[in-house]
């Protein structure tokens, strides 16, 4: 097998807090092939966003490797990293906060081009900006507008245009649609998928919205408290969820079904345990209805239960 485009190996990100070590991302292993979309799902605070930011070295990893085309970018120096950042980009969750309110639309999109020094000529650069705006479906007349004058969908398009400016190969999408209306969400998702088809992009798509992730991802990784508990192709995961946590997540998707009227949904009990100095064993064990004594000790390694389907639960089948 050829080297995958992006390989995350034993990636850890701990934060020091007064209470102890916060294990935001704990020993995550994932691979993303060129042209694929890896959906990362999990509830709030499970370390999804931290994972995305650590992969791009917006946060320095505590340990572990991020291999991009076989090279470990966590060991890159400043200059190498600047070059790598051209190809590894990010789309942010909040289209209100992620755009500098003092810069016009054209200036925002031009920023990565200026930083990368790709264009010496201003005219050429703004031609490129115009082209990018067309790609993401922004009218050229908005060039001199300011972000606050535009709606959420248009702002997110600006964010996408900025991410595309330097012809990236891999984009981390950190909940790019969760701040938008449902109708706009569909537009943005379709735009992202079209772009993927046209430019062969790879995405790491971070979200808590299972319907979104089902729509866009080819593979899904389920995270719980900083750990990846299940990884499989999208259809496989939705058809045969193996980890009790994944099962609970999928069971929580509302289904329109008249025969279910009046029946109670089976929901997860209890709260997420603290990610600060977590207890050994399965982190989901305190909430797991199948939990037994063995779950509270040892490390839960991902194991393959069928081709390409990995689960971190010793009892899952």
């Amino acid at each position: 097998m050829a080297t995958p485009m992006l390989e995350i190996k034993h990636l850890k990100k701990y934060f020091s807090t007064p209470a102890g070590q916060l294990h935001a991302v704990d020993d995550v292993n994932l691979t993303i092939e060129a042209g694929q979309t890896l959906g990362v799902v999990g509830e709030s605070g499970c370390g999804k966003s931290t994972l995305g930011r650590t992969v791009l070295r917006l946060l320095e990893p505590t340990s572990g490797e991020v291999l991009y085309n076989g090279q470990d970018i966590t060991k890159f120096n400043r200059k190498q990293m600047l070059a790598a950042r051209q190809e590894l980009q990010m789309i942010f969750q909040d289209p209100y906060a992620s755009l500098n309110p003092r810069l016009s639309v054209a200036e925002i999109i031009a920023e990565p081009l200026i930083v990368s020094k790709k264009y010496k000529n201003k005219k050429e650069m703004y031609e490129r900006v115009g082209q990018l705006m067309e790609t993401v479906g922004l009218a050229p007349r908005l060039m001199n507008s300011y972000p606050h004058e535009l709606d959420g969908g248009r702002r997110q398009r600006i964010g996408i245009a900025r991410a595309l400016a330097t012809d990236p190969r891999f984009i981390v999408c950190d909940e790019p649609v969760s701040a938008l209306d449902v109708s706009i969400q569909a537009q943005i998702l379709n735009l992202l998928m079209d772009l993927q088809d046209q430019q062969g992009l790879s995405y790491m798509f971070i979200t808590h919205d299972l319907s979104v992730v089902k729509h866009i991802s080819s593979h899904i990784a389920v995270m719980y408290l900083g750990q990846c508990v299940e990884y499989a192709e999208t259809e496989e995961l939705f058809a045969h969820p193996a980890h009790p946590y994944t099962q609970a997540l999928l069971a929580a998707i509302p289904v329109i079904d008249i025969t279910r009227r009046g029946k109670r949904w089976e929901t997860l009990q209890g709260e997420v345990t603290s990610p600060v100095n977590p207890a050994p064993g399965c982190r989901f064990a305190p909430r797991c209805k199948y939990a037994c004594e063995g779950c509270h000790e040892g490390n839960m390694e991902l194991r393959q239960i069928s081709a390409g389907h990995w689960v971190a639960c010793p009892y899952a089948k």
Partner: protein
Amino acid sequence: MTEQEEKQTYKKRSQVSAVWHRLKKNKLAMLGLIILCVMIGLAVFADFIADYDTVVIGLDTSQRLLTPSLEHLCGTDQFGRDVFARSIHGGRLSLSLSIISMSIAVAIGAFIGVVAGYYGGRVDDVLMRLMDILLAIPPMLMSISIVAALGQSMVNLLIALAIAYIPVFARVIRSTILSIKGQEFVEAARACGTSNARIILRHIIPNAIGPIIVEATLTMGAAILVISSLSFMGLGIEPPAPEWGTMLYEGREVIRSSPYLVIFPGIAIALSVMSLNLLGDGLRDALDPRLKN
């Protein structure tokens, strides 16, 4: 692509004009701006209005303590000097001293604040503790002791004021930087590989400019007060040079018989401080592009 070039220049102009447009709507700010412009104008052209050597510091015992009249708009003092002429010449000193000292304080304070706020950690700790030490002494007391230590001169007064206000700016700017630093657009800039210098200059400072300008104008008003107070106490501008505080000091002896000797410099101080405050408030609003017209 001449069309695009035109668009670019058009936009650059419109950004300044947009700020001006918003400022124009604020009547109080405009009032402050007009008063300030008049005062600066008077100060700049003071030499054409009244000759310094003869009218402003020249003694004329025959003209002592005249009440305001057409000839002497604000009357004359006990040495026979025209109070109006002295007031506008005094504006020269007060306004230029406060502007220069504030510029120095803003420049150094902004640098310290940006470095401390952006880099954080130990740099922040060291710089801010230093600022705390300076802040522990009130600006007034600080200026007095610096002038007393260095000797009484205009340059020393400038240094004293700048040092006294550097920690104030450093604090304000640091806290502004801290709140902006955590925002996603800074992270987005970092994700493109933007250098720290560029992030600070292009992304952080433009967004921090509002608080900086407001603080600068407000502090300029305070600086005028400090300069006047120091002069009043005999530590600032030395007589016979006309400074508003010096004039107050000289006038206090005859305050019962000739109150206009202190009223006019007093009004000058009050007007300049007030207009700076009004303008500062207005600018803060006008500089924020998020505020709708």
